[in-house]
């Protein structure tokens, strides 16, 4: 994927002002669509640089208990793909940071891969993360994304060999999402020398900006990542805060990360 996407350009521009960007993750429709809108507003005001909007799916196999529950609750509260797309459209038009969709492949497959990608383009979504769609299964998707100059983001993991990392990078645009450890979202991660070595290996195998996620949840984690990655991803922790302390607590939490 030789062409630079709008997403990568935006990231590189921001990186001139800041050493480490912050990306957060929300599940659309959890606890409600109004709350989603509020949380996005608070996050953008608090200084988040880019956001993943997850379209809920009934079988989120790569997600841990916190995001799993948020998916289930959103669906129970009546979230549909159409409503998710509509709220995303509003979000993108109201807030001036890059937004990505995160969802599972069945959502695209059912909607129609080309139709879904065109809709992303018309909404102004800049990229997608589809954790259960390896490049070999997603040729249509990759083609459609490339045609619309959108960024398909793939994932590096600690047990991804170097040649596979390069293959994934060749099929990605925008940035690479590197997961800090094995397992699902929302569990503890040890920020250690091993992680530094792994991140150095990720760096060596892609020229795209590097995001790091899974278990990032405090100022210390962010400090650790500064200089080793370009984007820190905070996912489950903000959802956990919504769950434990309510929507209004999100702003303070994000501010504590970027302060």
């Amino acid at each position, binding site marked *: 994927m030789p062409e630079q996407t709008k997403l990568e350009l935006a990231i590189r521009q921001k990186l001139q002002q800041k050493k480490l960007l912050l990306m957060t993750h929300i599940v659309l429709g959890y606890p409600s669509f109004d709350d989603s809108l509020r949380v996005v507003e608070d996050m953008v005001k608090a200084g988040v640089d880019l956001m993943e909007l997850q379209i809920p799916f009934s079988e989120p*196999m*790569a997600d841990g208990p916190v995001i799993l529950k948020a998916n289930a609750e959103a669906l129970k509260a009546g979230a*549909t793909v159409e409503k998710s797309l509509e709220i995303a459209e509003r979000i993108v038009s109201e807030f001036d940071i890059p937004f990505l969709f995160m969802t599972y492949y069945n959502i695209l*497959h059912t909607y129609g891969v080309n139709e879904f990608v065109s809709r992303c383009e018309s909404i102004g979504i800049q990229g997608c993360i589809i954790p259960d769609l390896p490049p070999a*299964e997603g040729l249509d998707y990759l083609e459609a994304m490339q045609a619309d100059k959108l960024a398909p983001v793939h994932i590096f*993991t600690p047990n991804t*060999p170097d040649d596979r990392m390069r293959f994934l990078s060749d099929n990605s645009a925008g940035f690479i999402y590197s997961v800090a450890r094995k*397992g699902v979202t929302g*569990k503890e991660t040890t920020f250690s020398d091993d992680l530094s070595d792994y991140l150095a290996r990720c760096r060596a195998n892609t020229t795209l900006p590097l995001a790091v996620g899974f278990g990032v949840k405090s100022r210390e984690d962010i400090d650790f990542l500064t200089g080793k990655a370009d984007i820190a991803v905070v996912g489950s922790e903000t959802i956990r805060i919504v769950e434990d302390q309510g929507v209004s607590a999100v702003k303070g939490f994000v501010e504590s990360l970027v302060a």
Partner: protein
Amino acid sequence: MRNSGYFSQFGGAFIPEILVSTFDELESAYLEAKDDDSFWKEYLELMSTYSCRATPITRLDNLSEQLGGASIYAKREDLNHTGAHKANNVMGQGLLTKRMGKTRVIAETGAGQHGVATATMAAKFGFDCTIYMGAHDVARQRPNVFWMEQMGATVVAVKDGSQTLKDAINEAFRDWVTNMDDTHYVLGTACGPHPFPEMVSWFQSIIGTEARQQMLDQTGKLPSRVYACVGGGSNAMGIFSGFIDDKEVELVGVEAGGRGRGVGGHAARLAYDDATIGVAQGYKTYFLQDKDGQMQDTHSVSAGLDYVGVSPILSHYHETRQVRFEAATDDEVVEAMQRTVRHEGLIPALESSHAFAQAYREAPQMSPDENILINMSGRADKDIFTVADAVDDPKWRDFIITKAAEYQMGQNDKKQGNGHA
């Protein structure tokens, strides 16, 4: 680029990146084992000494006469150790786990049969074992949970989603993405990402290979029709594989018709028109899902058939019309089971009874020169609570009430005892 494991448009491996190298390793181990004649020899040896292979076929003399059409035969997978065909797959994957040098196994289970079989294998081979089971199924299959725990397995009741088989599979994957270095996931049916559908069908093909030869030996010809119940599709793939190249044999897969047509009331993905093609749990097949692609609740009196997806290989056979799909409702199934118990002294599991129900429906219209073969995938000991309720047996109810009262009293005595001490 790996893009294998397709059966026309069905199958594939839609897996999170973290599992890609684990699947590569599994696929290589499977292909090496398949190429290595000594592996299958070791497998056959194990199955004939630890389980009950070759399982016989039995002619249902009384029902064949009563129904007055084709002669009915049953392939007796109920006689496997642990009471179902699940043992065939589990023992095979156990040998593969040893080959890969792993020391822990995990599995999902619906009816509990696959969980019991896996716990048994783990006890025999000395593996650590965790079984994921939907909380709803834990509640309806206590006897199986009891045995799994006796055999040293940890049974985790999964409270997410519909609390049945699909949720147990998701949870097993969540374990695997963390512990793949020492853990093998013993998937219980011919579903999931490549190579599972193909590999599980390979181990289960032992059923069809035996059955074909036995029919030839005992009746001098091939059966006209072969019936198997279809949950994920492993017992069906197992018996069908023996006859798939015999054009004169009609293969009939019987799904859970539950309370009848209409989403939510059944688990018939191929026989009814409620399912559409989708991708979930790592593979592409027909799923019972809504128009957004969200999986829907399913229902069946039998936990083992209560599943949203179906083997990609069977979806392929559905399209090529190599297998005909039918559904039997809960009521028909309980009736077929009672009839089999009463007149043949055989006790088919509720899952297997789906195949019996369809065979009993069709046999009378067939000629007495014809033979049909039913895969009796398991026995119903595990279903005693469900069956006793379904047949509404007052003596069973009294027994449970009395037993419960005894436990209650025991508990009160203990409490009082503690109080005095």
